[in-house]
């Protein structure tokens, strides 16, 4: 596998990438390192993992982090309701079975595999997406380090489980908290920013194929300029795509002031942003080169 294969594989799944992104993915895979992706919201950080899983035809296992996430939800848990039921049932039956009760009680049958355990027990290396790592507590982070370096999990009742295959790990973060040096040291770092005009246009055209070319160009230009404005919440690619889809569905072929004003809520999600943008709309439209009909 080389750089170009990775690139074309990602492209074939509809993920428009640049050299930097594909190089990062390529190196993370060849060097067997986790890939830590940071960047503003809505630039397609999570999408990379999804696309990778599709491109390499393997499973995507996702661990969504949140405050208070613990090992019960990340690794494994015993299904104690079922265990209780099993005990009750076995009380009534005369057990001629020589198999001791306990080893039955703590067998695979009652083990609820959570994402991390699932990831290491796959035959074919899956893509393990650890989403929004910065939302989890620091304790969880250091605990995760252990698994990321050893690739084995110990369950007291069963023993140590070695990874059958080493997953491709993608960790994403929104920088709500600085991740620790120790974690960074074990990862390759990838920063994804808002895309340039050409890239964004290509994405729009790919994801919303029914869109009019002129409209696509105008929307992309508008978004590019809009991101330079002072906003509380800068719209990402997801917003561009939403807007494009909406306008394309209504069969518009160009932007005008009224249209933008009435659909601003699709791209801006903050009251003040909408207000400010409405006030400076004419200026913005001039920059974009959209001529108003009035």
């Amino acid at each position, binding site marked *: 596998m080389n750089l170009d294969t990775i690139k074309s594989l990602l492209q074939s799944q509809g993920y428009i990438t640049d050299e930097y992104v594909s190089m990062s993915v390529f190196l993370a895979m060849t060097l067997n390192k986790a890939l830590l992706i*940071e960047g503003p919201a809505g630039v397609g950080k999570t999408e990379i993992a999804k696309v990778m899983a599709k491109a390499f035809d393997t499973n995507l296992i996702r661990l969504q982090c949140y405050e208070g996430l613990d090992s019960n939800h990340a690794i494994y848990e015993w299904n104690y309701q079922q265990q209780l039921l099993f005990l009750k049932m076995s009380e009534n039956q005369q057990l001629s079975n020589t198999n001791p009760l306990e080893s039955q009680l703590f067998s695979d049958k009652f083990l609820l595999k959570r994402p991390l355990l699932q990831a290491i027990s796959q035959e074919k290396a899956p893509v393990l997406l650890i989403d929004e790592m910065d939302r989890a507590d620091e304790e969880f982070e250091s605990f995760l380090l252990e698994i990321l370096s050893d690739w084995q999990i110990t369950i007291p009742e069963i023993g140590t489980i070695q990874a059958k295959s080493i997953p491709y790990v993608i960790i994403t973060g929104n920088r*709500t908290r*600085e991740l620790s040096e120790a974690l*960074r040291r074990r990862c*390759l770092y*990838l*920063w994804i920013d808002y895309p340039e005009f050409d890239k964004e246009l290509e994405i729009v055209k790919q994801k919303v194929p029914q869109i009019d070319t002129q409209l696509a160009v105008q929307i992309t230009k508008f978004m590019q300029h809009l991101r330079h404005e002072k906003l509380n919440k800068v719209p990402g690619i997801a917003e561009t795509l939403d807007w494009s889809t909406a306008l394309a569905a209504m069969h518009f072929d160009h932007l005008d002031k009224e249209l933008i004003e009435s659909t601003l809520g699709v791209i801006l999600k903050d009251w003040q942003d909408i207000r400010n943008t409405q006030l400076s709309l004419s200026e913005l439209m001039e920059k974009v080169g959209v001529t108003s009909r009035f």
Partner: protein
Amino acid sequence: MLQRETEISAHIVAFSRYLRVKGFMVSPMRESDALLALTHIEPTKQNFYLALRCIFPQNFKNLRDFDAIFDKYWKEIENGVDAKIAMAEEESAKKKKKPVEKKQSAPAFESLKNWLYGNKDKEEELAAYSNNVSLEKKDFSAFTDDDLAEAEKLIKLIARRLAQKPSRRFEPTRRGGVLDLRRTLQKNFRNGEEILFLHHKKAKPTRVKLFLICDVSKSMEIYSRFFVQFMYAFKKVYHRIETYVFSTSLQRISDELNESDFRTALRKVSSTVPHWAGGTDIGQSLRRFAENDCQQLDSKSIVLIISDGLDMGKPEIVEESLKAIKKRVNKIVWLNPLAGHTGYKPEARTMKVALPLLDVFSSGHNFETLKEVILKLKV
């Protein structure tokens, strides 16, 4: 792992060293990763650059600096200048600069004493400043690095107060609390079906996230050393804290303060911060904070700004950034050591626009007032 030393591997090693000088964390592991990576790619200039750019930076700041460093290094190689000479030159330049910096960062003893006495004429004030016996007896002017342990003790007391309000989440506890049925069943089933031990849980306290932003410009010189010390001590006992200093631009120093020895930490901080004891631009610095770190702020955060409010920048920017920050945090606290003077009026333009936006405004010029403020840091 890598048997043959070729010219390129020597260069990578030299480049890694150069990066370390520039503040990158480059482990030997990463150097070998870089060399391994190069064996996997098509040997073009672009690929070479991209691969190194993927391997070496470990955070956003690194990534931003990387291009310039890369260009500089390889250009110098092209010019036939030995990288070692370049490094040596830079180091010697640093050494030349350092004594000056050191001089500036160490506040004059008299002025420090003045500050510690709270800019008040009478010394009787001091006797009442604390009910901590050992500190009470201690001559406050002798409050140096070595007394950090004492300060830490005090801050520890304070820090405990920062986590008081119960949250909706639970955490296991040994004593008290309510029965944790889930854990009780889970743990006891390990040993069979009898329930032998009970486990309890109690509500987890809501922990405040603190952001300390300290002005280290020229006008704050006599206070800044103490406040950096304060931040250092605070960081040691309280983990949910991010620390920044600014003069003309903002710099995060949380990692630099993670030293076991304060002197080393201070040296690290003053060498990484540009314009230590230089001019002030509060507006730009706060704007930088509001833009870059707003993701980290939430309703449990408190931002604590330590500055005298004297600057050359535009007050509108201060106002705007404070408003942006205020929207996201629980509280903004501003400590202005000048406010300890009797008859102080917030007449600096920056202070005037900032005041209506602050939740707490205080002097924080001695331990008593500082303590008072910190006790107010509750969400």
